[in-house]
């Protein structure tokens, strides 16, 4: 590192090589129609998704199916139980994190939904969480319910047998959408072209 030469008047001062300037960001969030419906459901301890043309149910709903580029106009209530489709045990404490480690963040496919949500798993040791485990939502006390998915404090095991054949979204045919099979690449046709309505030939589609 290059030597910093200071003028005589401040020669005894320690040179400044870098400064730390924390920044804070406050922002306003416009929920929009779909998220407002979802959050209003949460206030009533119900989990509301939306159904896309073809039947796929999005939770939380975003108002549109990202693949079809079409609105998801039909509100659908999904179950408060689901299956763990994958998970991570976080053992890392880092700047800005409010979580106590270790914690289990899991992808949970709620019964009736077609997209896994990410939420916390508790009431079971981290090393006993498994793919296929059946879990249920644990809500805050009624007085503390607010329009946020954090009103579900966490999910816990239901005690039911594991769903060992849990359908993992995107894992259609056991190979995955992005696999080359027999040396042949997937084609654009496996996703539906929103302009033509063609394609969408994989599991879960309505073609």
């Amino acid at each position, binding site marked *: 590192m290059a030597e910093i030469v200071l003028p005589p008047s401040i020669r005894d001062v320690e040179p400044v090589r870098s400064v730390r300037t924390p920044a804070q960001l406050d922002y306003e969030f416009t929920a929009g129609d779909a998220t407002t419906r979802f959050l209003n459901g949460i206030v009533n301890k119900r989990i509301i998704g939306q159904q896309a043309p073809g039947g796929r149910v999005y939770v939380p709903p975003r108002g549109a199916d990202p693949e079809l580029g079409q609105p998801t106009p039909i509100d659908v209530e999904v179950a408060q139980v689901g299956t763990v489709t994958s998970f991570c045990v976080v053992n890392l404490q880092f700047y800005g994190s409010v979580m106590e480690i270790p914690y289990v963040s*899991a992808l949970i496919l709620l019964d009736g939904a077609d997209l896994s949500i990410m939420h916390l798993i508790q009431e079971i040791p981290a090393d006993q969480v498994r793919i296929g485990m059946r879990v249920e939502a644990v809500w805050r006390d009624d007085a503390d319910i607010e329009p946020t998915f*954090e009103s579900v404090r966490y999910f816990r095991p239901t005690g039911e047998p594991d769903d060992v054949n849990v359908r*993992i979204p995107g894992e*259609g045919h056991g190979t995955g959408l*992005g696999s080359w099979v027999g040396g042949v690449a997937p084609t654009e046709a496996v996703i539906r072209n929103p302009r033509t309505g063609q394609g969408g030939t994989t599991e879960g589609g309505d073609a």
Partner: protein
Amino acid sequence: MGKQRVAVVGIGQTKHQATRGDVSMAGLVREAALRALADAQMTWADIDAAVVGKAPDFFEGVMMPELFLADALGCTGKPLFRVHTAGSVGGSTAIVAAQLVQAGIHERVLTVAFEKQSESEAMWALSLPIPFTPPLHAGAGGYFAPHVRSYIRRAKAPDHIGILVALKDRQNGLKNPYAHLHEHDISFDSIKDSLMLWDPIRYAETCPSSDGACALVLGSERVADAAAADGRKPAWIQGTAMRSEPTLSAERDTVLPLGGALCAADVYRQAGITNPRKDVDCVEMYVPFSWFEPMWLENLGFAEPGEGWKLTEAGVTALDGDLPVNMSGGVLCTNPIGASGMLRFAEAAMQVRGTAGDHQVDGARRAVGHAYGGGSQFFAMWVVGADKP
């Protein structure tokens, strides 16, 4: 009029390390750019335009740094572009630069990508609370760990594969003087015994945080032919491709994303590659967590579903293997995030120019560079060769 030919005629990178306290952000990019210019035997005056990329500005908290970097990059009075595509940005930045030559607009384009992680809080920036959502995000590792677990289950892969990848890449990194990590004492057991940061991803199976930059000079056919006549081999760009896909689509495959496979198929078609395993001599792919090597081997058409880990286990991807992967040591040794994609593209170009030094693959004539970013939702690839396309 079709595409004009384009080649890499200059390559430069910084010494990458945890903290480059000896240089500012401007000094960092300038170090890489000057090396690329020297390699191309050019000066700033020869450059027609510059294309700059880095990961989200949130990381260092410096918004639109390309504005103040313009003079450090000799761009005053010249076209300067900024590219954003998250972690894949180093790759897509090089592709945008190549397209300026392919379009016949410019003859000599400088492209630079960088990150100064020592001045950054990337974990924080990747874990920003989302309104009305539990604050569970734990950086890139927290996002990707469940998808790695899905791969292990789906492919029935044994636990030690991730360790083998980390060991290979760290040993390759020892041969690369620019690499950030030079872990001479690393061993299978030291990786196995390292902390499970984001179970199933261990600390030693994770990329470091680096300060660094990479730069390329891309030239037209006329410029590249002149370099070749002077004994400086160009790396001819035989194909480039980018793809994106929606992160929250219901049937999205988060393990082997469709966009990644389509990107590979597109770039191979351009390069005339019909059997990637046979037609490609070596690959630099974006592997920030060791398990992504077998995942990308399958996603990029080098292996059948569930077979990628078997190539790793059999040593096929070793430096002296049949399909060397991450000869430079890869992202697992060096991760200045914004530059990481361009470093993959640069290594591929170095291989076909025969300038990769101790990590050179003998006789490499065609190489693939690959980058991905976001929640496995942006993909960028190029194929470079010793032969003119």
